């Protein structure tokens, strides 16, 4: 080992003030940490199965196995109905890995280092969530791409379709904070998955993802009406196929805001407490 020449310890100006102010620092640190997550994503492509192959399997399964029975033989029409719904389900499931990864990072001690640095408490979580954009975009590309091969057609136009993808990614980014919170609370990555499945399957099956709501018994219809997945699916259907959008979009945006207001503080608090 050679000796190290020692640069000045005070690297730039006031050591106690983050470069460019607190807000600029939060953005910069979050971007640096998001980049870390992206590098990890690129290095482990097998970790993308849940946003690539898995949604496609659901699409194949429901279209060809159940589709004929559900839609009285008209699989093509069922695919048009199903794909926007499965997109919503896949986005919700796609957030699980985030909570699992954060849980593993904490167990390994990687986050101890971040927490010993002059970085806002929220930066590691915000960075990790921001990097998840890539996964949600992947879900949309795979679903729409593979769906098109199976015969799915966007009936509206390019702009509404882009809006549907943007809304999907936005919803994914809000919904995944539940997974982040669970990831802070439970002890193992496996437990994150267990808890999230318990939450997501009632939400995705107890909705308008797979069947028309009016085929359901009354009590289940009541649940479907208050389920946040329902207005999301209706909005995506409206944007990709046809139908009114404004009302359901408003409800969906309200749910997204609600998810952030509730689960971001819960996740940050749980993160701060987890020593």
């Amino acid at each position: 080992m050679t000796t190290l020449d020692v640069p000045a310890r005070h690297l730039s100006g006031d050591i106690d003030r983050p470069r460019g102010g607190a807000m600029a620092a939060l953005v910069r640190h979050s971007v640096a940490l998001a980049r870390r997550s992206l590098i990890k994503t690129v290095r482990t492509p097998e970790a993308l199965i849940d946003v690539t192959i898995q949604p496609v399997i659901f699409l194949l399964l429901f279209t060809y196995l159940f589709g004929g029975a559900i839609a009285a033989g008209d699989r093509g029409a069922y695919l048009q109905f199903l794909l926007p719904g499965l997109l919503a389900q896949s986005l919700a499931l796609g957030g699980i890995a985030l909570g699992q990864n954060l849980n593993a990072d904490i167990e390994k001690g990687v986050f101890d280092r971040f927490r010993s640095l002059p970085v806002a408490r929220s930066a590691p979580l915000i960075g990790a969530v921001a990097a998840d954009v890539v996964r949600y975009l992947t879900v949309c590309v795979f679903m729409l791409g593979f769906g098109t091969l199976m015969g799915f057609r966007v009936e509206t136009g390019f702009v509404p379709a882009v809006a549907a993808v943007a809304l999907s990614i936005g919803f994914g980014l809000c919904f995944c904070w539940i997974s982040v919170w669970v990831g802070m609370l439970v002890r193992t990555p496996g437990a994150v998955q267990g808890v999230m499945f318990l939450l997501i399957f009632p939400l995705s099956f107890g909705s308008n993802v797979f069947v028309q709501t009016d085929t359901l018994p009354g009590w289940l219809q009541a649940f479907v009406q208050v389920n946040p997945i329902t207005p999301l699916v209706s909005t995506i259907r409206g944007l990709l196929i046809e139908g009114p959008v404004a009302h359901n979009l408003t409800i969906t945006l309200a749910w997204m805001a609600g998810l952030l207001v509730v689960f971001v503080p819960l996740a940050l608090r749980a993160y701060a407490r987890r020593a």
Partner: protein
Amino acid sequence: MSDLVVRAEGLRKRFGKTQALDGVDLAMRRGTVLGVLGPNGAGKTTAVRVLATLLRPDEGYAEVAGIDVLKQPARVRRRIGLTGQYASVDEDLTGTQNLVLIGQLLDLTTRDAKKRAAELLEWFDLAEAANRRAKTYSGGMRRRLDLAASLVGHPEVIFLDEPTTGLDPAKREDMWGVVRTQVTQGASVLLTTQYLEEADALADEIVVIDHGRVIAHDSPDGLKRRVGGLTLHVRPADPARVPDVMRILDAVAAPGTAASADTAAGARPGAVSVPVAEDTALDHAVPALRRAGVELVDLGLHLPSLDEVFHALTEGTPHSKESELV
């Protein structure tokens, strides 16, 4: 500016039924190495986590670089480097990426962060592995990268939690060299260890912790005096020569002590130990053994083990409840 760069008073922390810290006081002078010595579960790691702003104590006061750890953790974080007990490098990132990320989080420009990363990788003999994923590194390389990560920001105070646990002896000495260099460059180092040998090699002062309490704070020499100092250990090739060896070693024994054949449980018979006052005893013992024609298979000067330190420090005082229960 105060001469004390780390000061803690009455730190208490409880996890469920375990009182991890039970009123710990610490003081470290600027530009020195403080060794925190203790067995597993003594509270060493908890104390480090409190000082490094990772954990809030239930009670007590702590100050690092003259700043209140509880009131202004962000300012403390700009002045410390932490290397935890388990190498916390990111396995999917390369050595360079690991260090650049830390630099960016310390508000270096990307250019400066890259420069600093290259400099540290070079210094830690990791330049060739700089663009390999940390996953492919050996245990020693990961430790070095982890240590490098804690030095990115030129910290004033460096916390090392058992930095050499699991390293082979050669790597351990490399690590000691790094610590010494940091101190000559003006940093202060607080390191925890389970090895008296390590504390003796590095620390200006040693704090011994057991069951969440400080049971001694002394210089290494002072501690050794209290514990009983060094032991010379000799194993002749021919066990029949043990009486001769005992006679020769008696001549170098510390005042009031005598050589004894090793009879401790688990020890292989045929060796002789003698407490000695200082390491010059070797200069007398080795020629005398050679003159007597004793062939040796093992010869060594040993510090007391951590067990012996604890035994000596807690002797005469009623030991804790936990030990009585066992």
